[in-house]
């Protein structure tokens, strides 16, 4: 499967997760602590943004409407980056601890996003002001600090709820930056395949800021890796330890595979460069591209359900199940397509394996869905309640967030359309 195909599948997965997640958050009857409720909504909008960005980019830049592809992808990525920052500011531990702080924080993030968007529109899409990498630094730092604080909290090493906070911080961090962690060794070894990553190229300051964001993600990843190695040495291994170890080990193998390569296309290393060998291309596809397109929604689904951001009751169980099935079946069939591109299979065999995979996926749903939703992890409000201030928000506040995000995304897509019609030159707008 070409990377474009993966982007399209990833777009569908992200949109499916975002849309069905929003339906769940709106339809749930149970009371949920404010930051989890907002986090659920923001997470869903994050996936809607990524769904649009990936879906649009899957069309490619070769067509007549390349400006629309470029601008809409960039703008939705900027909304994505802002939403990720806002998520980190309230979840799992709220840094915005009063209603006033929350309102101010949300407006600051919105203002920052709009300034970035304005810079991309009126100056140039690759101006430093229009960059996207700040999200990696901000959210990585917040989630990294939360991880260290809760994972190493004295006398709470075995406390399920306390350790759960560090788990979700790791998972959120990996969800956002996992594809960058696959290149962590290149950061230390000063390899081209890490330092040549940029967004669009052509502006050395933008390239530097982008690379700095990726470097920050790697630094936080290394800190978490060292923390988990220490915890394993102390006999405190957890499920998330395996996740971070897996990502970092794949990063070591990636260094062996990619050492000596140079340009790898724009972005965070999810594309194979022109000079890549077939094997290097396949490796990039089955690691970074798969994380970027498929693992993100899967991790998002897990976080939503397992940490109680969305509570499933009889009223919304069917939506939740459908959501899980769609994600698993689409991800399974996409993975099969990738395998098929590596190992030539006949169509008959492929269809048979797909049938088995889907049956397995649905079987997994039947077996595991209940355990995933029935016992969502609670946060340590009883023992560490001061970290989790209880705020009361009107129901209309939650709806206002949805409305605001819907309007913002609609606006950026419309803006991209206007720029397309105007035949704008994305890289020299300031010369107009």
């Amino acid at each position, binding site marked *: 499967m070409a990377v474009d195909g993966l982007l399209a599948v990833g777009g569908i997965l992200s949109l499916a997760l975002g849309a069905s997640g929003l339906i769940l958050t709106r339809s749930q009857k149970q009371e949920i602590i404010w930051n989890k409720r907002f986090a659920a909504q923001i997470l869903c909008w994050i996936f809607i943004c990524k769904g649009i960005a990936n879906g649009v980019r899957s069309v490619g830049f070769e067509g007549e409407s390349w400006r629309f592809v470029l601008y809409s992808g960039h703008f939705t990525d900027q909304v994505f980056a802002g939403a990720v920052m806002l998520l980190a500011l309230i979840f799992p531990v709220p840094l915005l601890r009063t209603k006033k702080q929350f309102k101010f924080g949300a407006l600051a993030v919105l203002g920052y996003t709009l300034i970035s968007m304005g810079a991309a529109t009126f100056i140039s899409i690759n101006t430093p002001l229009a960059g996207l990498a700040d999200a990696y630094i901000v959210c990585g730092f917040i989630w990294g600090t939360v991880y260290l604080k809760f994972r190493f909290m004295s006398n709470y090493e075995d406390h399920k709820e306390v350790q759960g906070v560090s788990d979700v911080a790791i998972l959120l961090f990996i969800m956002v930056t996992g594809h960058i962690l696959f290149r962590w060794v290149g950061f230390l070894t*000063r390899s*081209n395949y890490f330092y040549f990553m940029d967004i669009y190229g052509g502006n050395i300051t933008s390239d530097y800021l982008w690379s700095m964001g990726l470097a920050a993600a790697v*630094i936080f990843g290394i800190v978490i890796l060292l923390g988990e190695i220490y915890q394993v040495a102390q006999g405190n291994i957890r499920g998330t330890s395996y996740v971070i170890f897996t990502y970092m080990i794949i990063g070591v193998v990636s260094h062996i595979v990619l050492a000596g390569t140079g340009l790898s296309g724009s972005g965070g290393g999810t594309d194979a460069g*022109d000079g890549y060998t077939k094997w290097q291309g396949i490796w990039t596809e089955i690691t970074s591209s798969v994380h970027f397109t498929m693992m993100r929604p899967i991790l998002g689904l897990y976080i939503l359900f397992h940490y109680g951001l969305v509570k499933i009751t009889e009223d919304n169980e069917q939506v939740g199940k459908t959501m899980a099935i769609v994600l698993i079946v689409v991800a399974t069939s996409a993975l099969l397509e990738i395998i098929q591109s590596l190992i030539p299979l006949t169509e008959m065999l492929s269809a048979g394996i797909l049938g088995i995979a889907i049956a397995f996926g649905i079987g997994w749903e039947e077996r595991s869905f209940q355990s995933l939703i029935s016992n969502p992890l609670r946060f340590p409000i009883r023992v560490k309640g001061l*970290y989790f201030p209880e705020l009361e928000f009107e129901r209309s506040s939650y709806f206002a967030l949805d409305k605001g995000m819907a309007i913002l995304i609609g606006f950026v897509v419309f803006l991209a359309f206007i720029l397309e019609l105007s035949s704008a030159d994305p890289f020299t707008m300031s010369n107009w």
Partner: protein
Amino acid sequence: MNEEQGIRFLITDDDSGRSFALLSLALVVGLAFHAYTFNVTKANDIANKYAVDVYSIDFEHYDVQDSDSLLIANGEVDVLQLSREIMGVDEGSLMAQITFDVSYSESSGQIGDPCDEVHVSIAPNGMEADWQNENNILSDSNDNCDPMTLVVYVYPGYVGESSEVVGNSAKYWNDVWTNETYGSGTIELEISVETNEGPTSFATGGDDNEEINVQWTVSFFEVEIKSIPS
């Protein structure tokens, strides 16, 4: 705002701010390393990462020649083998092409004895070569004593002329033009003879063999790849 509502509380509670300090230190050190690498160590590489490299590829070729003479009986097939080892050249020599010049004349000494029929062919295996090349001449035959030439192009794409290429790396082009696999193995030239009897053969004892001369020329090359400054 009370103390618990402030961010300072989040930083210092439980661990006196150690987590925050540790991560800040790691970030500062890591980003300093990154800044030095990006702006100093790799500054030139990064500035030129989109520059398309141009390389000149120059060849120097030399030939190795030798000849052999085979006496082949009527109806028999003889085989002449050739390999790097037989030629006594280095295993790493880059082989461009092999040419066999086959010649013979009627050697029976009988008056009016016509030329014999000689068939020469090269089986497209045994040696790693460009067997699909349209210019290969893998077989020939005649009965008029004209010389025959068979040619096998060994190294794909080699035409012997210097060229300039755009893109990829010097290593890539070096790998393209130093593949020692081509020319490995043994090539076999099969020669068969069908004698044609002359009008006086009944009186002189017949024409039952022919001497075939084979001169082989193997072209080797050396390659030099240079980056052309843009």
